[in-house]
């Protein structure tokens, strides 16, 4: 028997067109429901009714984002798995070297030699082998969980949201949006504060993310292929953080 899980989508004002925001985090969702077969029922709260084409667009975005997320996770880990073999070899060489220093050479020269080995081999090779090796294990766990979720996710259906309070909040956001003006980032800041005032968490999350997206100075290239050695080293050791995607679908403008 396939269980039906309720999730919510809110059509909220953004500049240009409105956005349907599906309030579900794949990481949290996979932790809680990844193991049981389920269908998602997306309850849509919108100031105006959406047609079948617009709903299809939301479902498409959800699948697109979740599908891409798993591929990004897989890709980020594909070559890291070789570090699982590389790391023990380097670890053995390093420990062998240090043990031999103490077995054969007498102190204080043995301490000097151990220091030399640790500094050159330990710091440079140990870190570039062992840390990515550990990272590979960590990422595998998250990847498996997501894979399990995608396997057990048996489809999506839509329903009109029935909670009166949520519907009112969506309408309040639309009305508030029609009254504010200024720079894009300022409009989103005011909408974020307003959502906090009316205790509308999904809208708060959406606008917070929008503000971050507008203000941060980061592109795909600067994130994945940085030019500075400090960031290159950081990515090499700890990997790129694959963020859980925000599911947003454009819908028609519903300005009042």
């Amino acid at each position, binding site marked *: 028997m396939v269980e039906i899980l309720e999730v919510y989508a809110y059509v909220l004002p953004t*500049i240009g067109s409105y956005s349907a925001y599906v309030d579900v985090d794949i990481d949290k969702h996979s932790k809680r429901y990844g193991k049981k077969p389920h269908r998602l029922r997306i309850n849509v709260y919108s100031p105006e009714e959406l*047609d079948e084409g617009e709903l299809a667009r939301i479902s498409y975005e959800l699948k697109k984002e979740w599908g891409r997320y798993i591929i990004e996770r897989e890709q980020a880990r594909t070559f890291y798995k070789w570090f699982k073999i590389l790391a023990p070899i380097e670890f053995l*060489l390093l420990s062998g070297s240090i043990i031999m220093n103490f077995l054969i050479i007498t102190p204080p020269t043995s301490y000097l030699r151990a220091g030399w080995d640790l500094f050159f081999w330990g710091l440079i090779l140990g870190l570039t082998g062992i840390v990515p090796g550990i990272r590979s294990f960590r990422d595998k766990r998250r990847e498996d969980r997501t894979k399990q979720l995608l396997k057990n996710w048996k489809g999506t259906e839509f329903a009109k949201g029935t909670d009166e309070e949520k519907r009112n909040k969506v309408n309040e956001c639309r009305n508030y949006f029609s009254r504010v*003006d200024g720079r894009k980032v300022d409009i989103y800041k005011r909408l974020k504060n307003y959502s906090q005032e009316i205790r509308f968490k999904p809208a708060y999350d959406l606008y917070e993310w929008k503000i971050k997206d507008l203000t941060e100075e980061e592109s795909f290239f600067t994130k994945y292929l940085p030019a500075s050695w400090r960031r290159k080293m950081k990515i090499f050791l700890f990997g790129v953080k694959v963020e859980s995607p925000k599911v947003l679908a454009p819908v028609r403008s519903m300005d009042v």
Partner: protein
Amino acid sequence: MRWLAYRVPRKNKPDIFYIPYEPFTFLEAAGRSYIHETRKDESFEVQLLAPKIEDADEDFLKNHVSGGILDTIYRDEKFVNDTLMRLMTRYIGMLEYFWVKYVIPTASLTWAVYYGFTGGTSFDVLFSAYLFKGREFFVNRIRKEVNEYHERIKRGIEWSFKDLASVKQIEHRGLRRLREIIENTEDKTEAYVKALHACEELGLPELSEFYAIGAPIEEQTIQEPHLGFALQNKLKESSRKEIKRKSYPKGNLIKDQGMNLFDYKVSAKSLNKVKTFRDLDVEVKRAAKGIGMEEITLFTTPKGYDINAYEIGNPRAYERILIKAGMHGREPAGPLAVLQMMKSFEKEGRYTDEALSNSQIIFMPCDDPEGFTMRAWMAVDMEGHEEHWPPQERIVRYRDTNGVWGDRAQSPRIIAIQEYIRKEIEKPTLGYDLHETIGKFADLVYKGAGILSIEDFHIPEKTRQRLESMHRRPEGRIARALSKIPFEIRRYLPFIDKEYAYHAMKKIPAFELGEAMMQHVRDRGLKTYRGEYQKLLDQPTPGQAPQLLTFDEGRAVDGPLLYNLEIRVCTTWLHDEFETLAYTTETFQNALDERVLEQVAFVEGGIEKKLRLGRYAR
């Protein structure tokens, strides 16, 4: 598994199936085929969003839609492949890093040989051997693995499409509205322009590109490819080149001591509404009338749009400041920034009076009105034929309109602008040409970056040569590795550039102006081109002469790619012809208001510095 395709309405032609091409479509396809594989119970379906559900042969739909989707995916595959390879090379490069591979093993071996092969030293030999050969084994394994992974993804996608069960048509309100717009508009180009600007509001921003390319195709004079030589098989309507002046009476100004020269209060909603040249022209003319500017018509395009210049300030002043924008239609922030600057003169700021008494400011909001309306890029051929998005097979013959300012073969509109500058402005002392670098693929690199200034001032030949030598790609592995050492260390090393570009350029007096402008942008809380973006620009592209040479944060001059080939962009021409201090600005993917204000702040900083206003006063 599901996929989404669009049935897009066209004017006087049957609808067309369309799948928007986005970077990483390939990864999305891979994700979807993965989901399809894991959920073995679900059949694969393509949803076709359409203006109206129409009777169609099921097999016809299936063949056409799946073919189209696969084409789109493979178009993206090369890009993903290249990106993945670059990504891998970087990571693998960390394993093969010069010091790890050569310096440490050599030092270790020397140590081992010197002290004898006993104890720990024998392990050093083992380590060295491992570094020389062992890691290479892993690197090759990783490379092979990633290639195989990529192939597996491709096969997975193809297999998924073999399971395609049906193409389901779904009605979409937005597409229905687009069809209405197109049917109710008589002119083809006009219909596509209207559709282009309606896409976003209808919740279909992904279709904008379709119409942005669709409109110029209708306008092209070359309709069929010819092998021998170009035949213009559709006569273009003629343009008019005649300078006409029109004065508006001076309006009443409102005092606003909160602003210096330009107003920084913008409305994102209003900016979004200026979509076509007509919208822009109405706003520009309203501002010009309000403040009593002189309107000069330089050129009338075949479509009947006027390319205008607007003069304000003291016509007898020595300082003549030219601010022009809109050479590329796909870059809307420039014209909107000029509009914002013109509107600012409706108020009297702290330095407005002083600036207008001591200078004449000339605004040229848009060089390519049709391009602005169609969001299209224009190119020109040797005979002066202008085309928006020239056909692919002719692209070699056509050149960017910004690249031909120093050539004999130019577009008629550029000749008209140049004539106006020569005869009417005579000698601009400060010049700006506002540009942008935006688009799906540019955004992957530059999204979030602030304003970049490409400067034209006199650089002694010796300094330029030194500047170019710093960017020359080092030959050989050792030189390449050494060139990557941070400057702070590199300056103490023999045989490597001791002097950073910044120090070489700082000796030139004109350098200060650009520095002040960038500082002004920062002071206004706006973004400048810096950090990782700056480092990316600093790095030479392998095997290619750089187009730009950076010498300070967010500042560059034309590199050997343009300079040595004598490609003169607008600002270079201004400098060569009149010794104007000229600046090409580039803004990148950010909110439109941010981009507009970055341009405004940059220009304001320049005017304040040049006219010694405010904190720059003597």
